[in-house]
């Protein structure tokens, strides 16, 4: 069976840009194919992660981006799972290669979130919640996650200051990432004194709205050696699971769907959480990194909040994983449909020694966790190995 490899990656600037969705894709594709033959000579299928046609009034994203890449008459389709769409595209590419359906598949993700301002993004994102009871009540993405945070604080004695430490850590990581939307550190007071969005969350607990495009080329190990001389990254585990849509019917303090999805990817890869050197988890809001550290098996139950501390300073039972070295969704940015692939870009750079000032020495195994809807409404996980 082929061993799927990430051969090259590309990521557009993330944030408020003057480019449209297709242009953001063009930037990412140009980077990914700088050292490669034309996409038409390599790519057999395309998947596009994209949250919403509401931003640009455009569907048919598979056809559009295939055309912009010079691909003709290949299978090309959009996948949708709110903020998990990017990793969904990656998983389809990986599974197509692993099962022998195709030798080379392009996973892309794109979102032009700033098109309708913050109000437009708020409305578009609210479509991820149950129309019947949640949307009618005026629920928003920050308030959904705030419901998790408030309960987590209640059960584990966590404070708003503890949550703020996560934002401070991820901004410090983002300051070292030339790809990050926010390449600057923030201090605790800045986070704590920012305006409430949905208590306990303040502005600096929340990932920003931003545009972005990403492209990741997945091929068989055999084709990878033909295409590039440099080492590639093996995708040894991939899993996805839909849990349920309404947050009320969820375990609020332990994301069970995320935990099951993590276990499946570890099992496929034949590794465990203690083997993971670097991880990008879905820190759309500060509390997410704590919850997902527990779901991914990095932290003992109830101790996920120590994710803000460096490895070695956390309590017994924690692994030595380095979390959100890119700056995470919080600082690297969160262009919804591209986010899961931006996570893969960071893992690729860490595992190939390209991560510059934020390089984790000897990083050999990476774990990615991308979510859509509120928390683990849907989860996609990947294990990548050098």
């Amino acid at each position: 069976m082929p061993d799927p490899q990430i051969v090259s990656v590309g990521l557009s600037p993330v944030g408020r840009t003057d480019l449209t969705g297709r242009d953001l894709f063009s930037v990412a594709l140009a980077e990914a194919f700088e050292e490669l033959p034309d996409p038409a000579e390599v790519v057999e299928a395309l998947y596009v992660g994209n949250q919403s046609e509401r931003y640009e009034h455009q569907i048919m994203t598979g056809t559009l981006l295939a055309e912009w890449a010079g691909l003709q008459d290949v299978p090309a389709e959009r996948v949708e799972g709110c903020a998990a769409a990017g990793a969904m595209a990656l998983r389809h590419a990986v599974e197509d290669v692993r099962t022998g359906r195709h030798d080379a598949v392009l996973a892309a993700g794109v979102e032009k979130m700033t098109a309708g301002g913050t109000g437009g993004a708020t409305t578009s994102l609210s479509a991820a919640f149950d129309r019947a009871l949640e949307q009618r009540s005026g629920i928003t993405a920050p308030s959904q996650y705030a419901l998790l945070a408030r309960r987590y604080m209640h059960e584990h004695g966590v404070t708003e200051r503890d949550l703020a430490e996560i934002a401070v850590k991820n901004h410090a990581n983002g300051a070292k990432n030339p790809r990050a939307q926010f390449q600057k550190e923030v201090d605790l007071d800045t986070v704590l004194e920012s305006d409430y969005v949905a208590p306990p969350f303040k502005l600096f607990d929340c990932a920003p709205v931003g545009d972005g495009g990403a492209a990741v080329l997945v091929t068989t190990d055999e084709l990878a050696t033909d295409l590039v001389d440099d080492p590639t990254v093996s995708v040894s585990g991939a899993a996805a699971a839909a849990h349920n849509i309404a947050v009320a019917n969820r375990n609020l303090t332990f994301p069970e769907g995320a935990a099951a999805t993590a276990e499946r990817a570890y099992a496929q890869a034949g590794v465990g959480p203690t083997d993971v050197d670097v991880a990008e988890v879905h820190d759309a809001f500060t509390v997410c990194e704590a919850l997902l550290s527990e779901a991914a098996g990095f932290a003992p139950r109830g101790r996920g909040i120590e994710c803000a501390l460096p490895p070695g300073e956390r309590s017994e039972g924690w692994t030595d994983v380095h979390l959100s070295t890119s700056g995470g969704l919080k600082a690297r940015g969160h262009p919804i449909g591209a986010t899961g692939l931006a996570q893969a870009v960071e893992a690729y750079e860490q595992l190939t020694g390209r991560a510059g000032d934020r390089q984790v020495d000897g990083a050999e195994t990476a774990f990615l966790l991308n979510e859509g809807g509120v928390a683990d409404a849907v989860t996609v996980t990947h294990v990548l190995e050098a």
Partner: protein
Amino acid sequence: MSGKPSPLGPDDITSDSPFTLPGFFDALGEGRLLGAACADCGETLVPPRPACSACGSRSVSVEEQPRTGRVVSYTAVHTPPPAFVEEAPYTVAIVELDSGARVTGRLEADYEDVAIDDPVELTVREPDEALRERSLSYETDWPLHVFEPR
């Protein structure tokens, strides 16, 4: 043979059945909050649906839910979608009803006055002009559930 309900057939799924949203909101408009009770695992889910997401069983029956419950978690929306801006900030909560079913909804109380485990009661409101305006064509007469402190 057990006395468990059989899976719904195609003819059972009509707009006057509470297993559909039109049927659920019709009942809510009459003051009855309905859920689906699973005969296999005991889970209760609101709104009713043809299968239990906890155990997968399709042996489910409609049960009227109690109006009283307690706050499991809560927050306030300070940055609403534009269609809700006149109402912000507003408090929302996850409430566990006395049956064990959980429902998210508005809580008519100031955020500062709410605490986890507070007792609350479900009320049902006729749709006001603002709610009608942001409704889809088939939703305009659907009522809104709102929790109140008790």
